[in-house]
């Protein structure tokens, strides 16, 4: 009997025994569905973190020189943390040496930030806002634009003029139903003039990126941003390409080590944070999550396999006289073996396809009703179908070999 014939026979049997087949399919179907769904959640979180969260915090082909990383996804142990605490802060007088070694075409910005209270005479009480003092190509690197007003003029950076660009949340809170441009706000009590409203940067995990304000680094609030006037939080460097970024990073690393007078054996006492380094922990975590996402449904698939095996055993018992007849008419052992294995693996594969469909549906449903941006991983679909068919084959082997070994005479006699 050729394989196509076996598949046709299997589909026929499945069609004529709809209810039993449906039950058999269920185990595999549910297992595969959860596999697809769980992997799509993990995958979606990864895409979310990369594109939406870290992508917003760290611009493309850029790195940030900091005394310690500011994006921590939880893998810092106590020892590392203590070492971070001991590190020297970055100082503004270290910046010129850094700028000097940057390759041509590289942009940079210097920032210092703190949460300060802001208030206006138009809105509610003082509000805590993330205030960042910026200098250099900050708005270019972040591709941050204003929806109202303007960015800072060059002389405002130089003079440290008390002007401010505020985020949408701050506008809403301090200037309800008012155009904030040219009006006064107070940052930690100091008067500033609003010159622009920054475009919305959205939110991640319910945390808004719009409760922000930007001032020229040299503006009066500077002394409030850090305990010492010369302290800065980051130098942000952006290169035109990844290769140039790597080169710039290497140059900056050498300069920083020189300025900190590190010996070759000593480790860096500063950090060069890239999108990749920020995601390092996530990548590690994702591995575990995917493993869990595969292991849990796998358990369901084992249950599914046992169900299929039992139903196939019942099918063999019920169809004993059919098997006897087929043997009398010339079916060899391997024909009977093939018939039942193909039947169970077709069941498994059909269950897997149904599971894939349901899993994709579940992922789409979650995307629309929950904030989880699920993304179905193509490999999980392939794995699901393969595993489903595999479960079918494995659970069919024993019942099929029982069927193949039946003695035709005894089998025929059974009614």
């Amino acid at each position, binding site marked *: 009997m050729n394989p196509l014939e076996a598949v046709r026979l299997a589909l026929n049997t499945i069609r004529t025994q709809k209810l039993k087949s449906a039950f058999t399919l269920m185990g595999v179907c549910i297992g595969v569905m959860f596999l697809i769904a769980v992997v799509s959640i993990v995958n979606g979180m990864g895409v979310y973190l990369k594109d939406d969260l870290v992508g917003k915090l760290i611009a493309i082909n850029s790195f940030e020189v900091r005394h310690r990383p500011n994006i921590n996804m939880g893998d810092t142990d106590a020892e590392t943390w203590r070492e971070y605490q001991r590190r020297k802060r970055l100082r503004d007088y270290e910046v010129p040496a850094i700028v000097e070694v940057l390759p041509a075409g590289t942009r940079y910005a210097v920032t210092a930030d703190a949460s300060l209270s802001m208030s206006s005479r138009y809105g509610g009480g003082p509000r805590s806002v993330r205030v960042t003092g910026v200098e250099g190509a900050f708005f270019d690197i972040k591709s941050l634009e204003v929806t109202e007003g303007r960015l800072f003029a060059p002389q405002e950076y130089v003079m440290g003029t008390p002007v401010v660009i505020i985020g949408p949340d701050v506008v809403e809170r301090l200037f309800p139903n008012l155009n904030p441009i040219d009006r006064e706000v107070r940052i930690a009590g100091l008067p500033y003039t609003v010159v622009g409203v920054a475009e919305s940067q959205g939110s991640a995990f319910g945390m808004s990126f719009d409760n922000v304000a930007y001032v020229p680094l040299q503006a009066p609030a500077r002394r409030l941003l850090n305990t010492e006037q010369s302290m800065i939080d980051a130098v942000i460097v952006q290169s035109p390409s990844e290769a140039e970024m790597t080169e710039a990073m290497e140059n900056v690393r050498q300069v920083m080590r020189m300025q900190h007078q590190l010996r070759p054996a000593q480790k860096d006492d500063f950090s060069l944070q890239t999108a990749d380094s920020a995601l390092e922990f996530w990548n590690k975590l994702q591995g575990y999550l995917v493993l869990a996402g595969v292991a849990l449904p796998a358990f369901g698939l084992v249950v599914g396999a046992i169900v299929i095996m039992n139903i196939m055993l019942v099918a063999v018992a019920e169809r004993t*006289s059919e098997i006897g007849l087929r043997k*009398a*008419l*010339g079916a060899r*052992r391997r024909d009977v073996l093939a018939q039942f294995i193909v039947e169970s693996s077709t069941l498994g594969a059909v269950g897997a396809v149904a599971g894939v469909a349901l899993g994709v549906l579940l992922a789409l449903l979650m995307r629309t009703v929950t904030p989880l941006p699920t993304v179905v991983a193509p490999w999980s679909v392939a794995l699901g179908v393969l595993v489903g068919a595999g479960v079918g084959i494995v659970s069919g082997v024993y019942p099929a070999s029982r069927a193949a070994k039946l003695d*035709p005479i005894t089998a025929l006699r059974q009614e």
Partner: protein
Amino acid sequence: MSNTIDDIGISTTGERQAVVATPGATPDQDWVIVARGLKREYDMGGEIVRALRGVDLAIRKNEYVAIMGPSGSGKSTLMNLIGCLDSPNGGEYWLNGMLVSAMSDDQLARVRNKEIGFVFQTFNLLPRATALQNVELPLVYAGIPADERKRRATEALDSVQLGPRLHHRPNELSGGQRQRVAIARALVNRPSILLADEPTGNLDSTTSQEIMRVFEELSRQGQTVVMVTHEPDIAAHARRVVVLRDGIVESDERRERFVDRVGIQHATTKVAHD
């Protein structure tokens, strides 16, 4: 066994005795079945049941043989051996010059597919398959492509007057029609023997006669037929009757002698075509 020359026009007692008397010798091509001292014993937990105790039987091409005997005499056991569903514990079984008693399981399956057409008392059709699909089954295992299968199965069903019932399922057919589907299935692969175990056992007498007419027609066309029955008037349709008792051949004679001996009154009217 009767020792007189018993000529049924195809084989004589002398010829049959000669061919079974030489163990190991390959019979001529026109001997379809040659069994020499065939034994089949069942071990029932220490107690040996001797179902066949040395059966000698030779059947030529185009013979129409009925096997009779009381219940438990070994008829079905012999049929299973002749049909290659079972292997003997002793003796030889030659089918078309092949020594079947030495074959493996897969070889036996091959021989069943090519050489044997089975007709069972309980029809044994697949209930969910149509008449056509049931008849195609042996061709599936013979590896015949689908379109040729369909053509040959349709022909076989036509030849048993079931042309208009190709797509009916067994439960939509009468008992006689079901048995004719089974006969079509038995014949579709052009076997060298048609083997029937109590083919009329589940049919009323009118339908039984109808099936017997099909068998007679097949025999007239040259088909070798071996049929087990315990009804003498069914056996009387064959041209030769073998009677088993306690696992050996008790008598092996032409139909007329059998009819005379057991005294079937109404049988002669039904065999008028001779």
